[in-house]
């Protein structure tokens, strides 16, 4: 906005000089020239401030609709309370963040697959999550070793993309949240850099809570057959 003010006054000063018939010589000899120079200086300051403001305005990024099939698959042997907690997590994530797909793998099996998933080859079914393959992959191992959340803000830049075939192919951002040392939650978002830092902190706290809940119930159950 100051650009317009500055630019317009710049032109106005030059115009003024032109129509008053004064020779276009920029020297500080006459008081008229001095006044002109000062005004020019102010106009330039305004233009530059306007430029600084332009760069402060955030760049708006459009979300990309994920391509795939809607699904809501939760491992059937979980107790009611755990299921409702998982549903709460999904409800919060999809309402507050740009998360459009959620996959939770715990104790070598896929517990949850909610949201938009990639289509299986040839059929209209969601792509099944191969938990064992995921857990052997480098993404999971890396996250397990560091114990911290991994945020891939622009998924197309990461080669590890191939380890997540169950996410829609045009997922823009992914957060990998370790659940203790026994599982991982994969969140797929529809906007590049769509998860803010506050989202990330909330997700890590929710991950800890989920891990506590799942650990309690998984340990009280006999070992389950991998599906």
């Amino acid at each position, binding site marked *: 906005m*100051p650009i317009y*003010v*500055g630019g317009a*006054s710049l032109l*106005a*000063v030059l115009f*003024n*000089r032109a*129509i*008053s018939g*004064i020779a276009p010589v920029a020297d500080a000899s*006459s*008081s*008229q020239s*001095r*006044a*002109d120079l*000062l*005004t020019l*200086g*102010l*106009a330039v*300051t*305004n233009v*530059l*401030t306007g*430029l*600084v*403001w332009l*760069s*402060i*305005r*955030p*760049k708006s990024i459009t979300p990309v609709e994920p391509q795939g099939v809607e699904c809501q698959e939760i491992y059937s042997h979980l107790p*009611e*309370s755990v299921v*409702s*907690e998982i549903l*709460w997590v999904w*409800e*919060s994530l999809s*309402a*507050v963040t740009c998360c459009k797909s959620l996959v939770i793998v715990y104790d070598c099996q896929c517990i949850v697959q909610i949201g938009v998933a990639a289509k299986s080859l040839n059929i209209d079914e969601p792509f099944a999550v191969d938990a064992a393959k995921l857990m052997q992959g480098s993404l999971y191992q890396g996250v397990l070793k560091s114990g911290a959340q991994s945020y891939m*803000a622009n998924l197309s830049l990461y080669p590890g993309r191939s380890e997540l075939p169950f996410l829609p192919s045009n997922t823009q951002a992914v957060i990998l949240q370790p659940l203790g040392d026994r599982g991982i939650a994969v969140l797929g978002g529809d906007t590049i*850099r*769509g*998860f*803010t*830092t*506050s*989202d990330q*902190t*909330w997700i890590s*706290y929710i991950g800890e*809570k989920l891990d506590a809940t799942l650990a309690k119930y998984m340990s009280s159950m006999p070992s389950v057959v991998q599906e």
Partner: protein
Amino acid sequence: MTSLTTKTLLLNPLIQLKTSLPLKFRPKIASISARLDNSQQQMNLSVLRFTLGIPGLDESYLPRWIGYGFGSLLILNHLLGSDSISAAQLRTEALGLSLAAFSITLPYLGKFLKGAAPMDQTTLPEGAEQIFVMSENVSIAQKEALAWATYVLLRNTNTTSVLILTQGELCIRGYWNFPDGVSKDNVLDWFKSNIEETGLSDLTDTLYFPQTADAEFWNILPQGTQSVLVQPVLLGPNPSTNDMGNIEGFFLLASSMRYAYNEKDRAWIRAVSNKLRSKN
């Protein structure tokens, strides 16, 4: 001479470059790519800033100083000018003075830009004690849920004090101060009686006071509170009864900062309040 390659730098925000020019009083042009953590959106900024390289000088006020300086020079020029001041000169001076006035107000306007200044830090309320109390007759599961919810709210948002009332049971955590004569045991009763007076339990919509206001329930909040958020715990819309959301209680969050809860924070707080819904 200043090279105008800085113009191309504007288009490529990821380049970090500082050109320092040999002449002493030329402005340094720094191009910084930064992420502001305290703003709503994740912004990848390319900020072209003029800095004179003097530590401690806030360059955003530069237009103001320039406005004052040039404006006074203009007036000086006018007074010292030759006897006949032409109309053209008067026009220029008028234009110059209005520009100077505009420049002076620019930094003030700039504060309202998205992503401009960071917020002040949280200050702890004075004379307040840190407490964590919960009503006695809550189930273990509910206890865990309340403890986790209060913990997460205190850690993740700018909250200094949190109070949750759900299904008639209270959980209070954070910094609160109470009048003398209220011992640790009576705390719950004191809160309960005060809350009944305020009628917050019947709230159906989220209340947000970003700045200190004369709300009626101010007496239970710790001193130094500047923003308050009250989030009712709603049951989802029940299709069998035509009731849009039975209210089960509310969350009361107080912070010592103004404008402490932005859109995102409030959305997350709503999500956490949904966690404490009873399941049926």
